[in-house]
């Protein structure tokens, strides 16, 4: 029985270890740097604790821009153009989209069951839906 309790505790600790820490997004949003002229902004967030121990890198156009941490949100500003988001979990899963100057786009990192482990799947989300999901997440950006 005691072993079972310890196992349960270890599981909870491992879950917590995979979760983002930081101020809630809705408390820092008003202080974020405004988008510079001619740029586009891409928010990337993971609203679920499912598979929290799996935290792959997130690549935007081949460059690592962050880590897929549960309950975390951050953003990057980029020149407008073609965007390719890849998460390097069990199987690479790719999202492609375009941005134009002044655009803000929202990428949700969903979690799916892979063959062996959870898979992190990037999805493009409408602004209204994304902003609702992001409000209580931990802001992990700078």
């Amino acid at each position, binding site marked *: 029985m005691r072993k079972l309790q310890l196992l349960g505790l270890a599981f909870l600790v491992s879950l917590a270890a995979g979760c983002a820490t930081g101020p809630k997004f809705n408390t820092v949003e008003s202080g974020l740097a405004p988008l510079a002229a001619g740029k586009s902004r891409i928010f990337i967030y993971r609203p*679920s604790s*499912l598979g929290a121990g799996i935290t792959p890198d997130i690549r935007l156009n081949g460059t690592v821009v962050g880590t897929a941490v549960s309950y975390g949100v951050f953003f990057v500003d980029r020149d407008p153009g*073609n*965007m*390719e988001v890849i998460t390097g979990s069990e*199987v690479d*899963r*790719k*999202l*492609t*989209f*375009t941005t134009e100057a002044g655009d803000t*786009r929202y990428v949700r990192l*969903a*979690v*799916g*069951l*892979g*063959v062996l482990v959870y*898979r992190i*799947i*990037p*999805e*493009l*989300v*409408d*602004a209204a839906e994304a902003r609702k999901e992001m409000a209580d997440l931990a802001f992990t950006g700078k």
Partner: protein
Amino acid sequence: MSRVRAVSAALLLAVAACASEVYRRDAVLSTPPATAPARIEIVKEAYLQLPAGYGRTLPQGSVWELRGALPEGAVYRRVGGIFTVEGAQVHEAYLVIAANQLVGFYLPVEKAYAPYSPVALNIK
């Protein structure tokens, strides 16, 4: 209930591991004909079943802006929203419309045309 939804979503996402790529071929956007409306609006919601098994909705009231033309039809990008098609990967997509019918999708990043079984749209 939310747990059931979360598990259902995870199971659906698991299917993605087996989904095929969105079938497409290279395409080059050209200048649209002057007769093509600069903006269209979906008057009645339309549900689309994509070949890989995923569903998509063209929401009532959504507005789409003319971005070019392909031999298959005029190409429209969603205004103030997003639209994607999905197979093994997820791609932003524009609608390709001819004679008030959706005939396919233009994938702007891949510069490709993905045909779709024509479906009549209620647009204005």
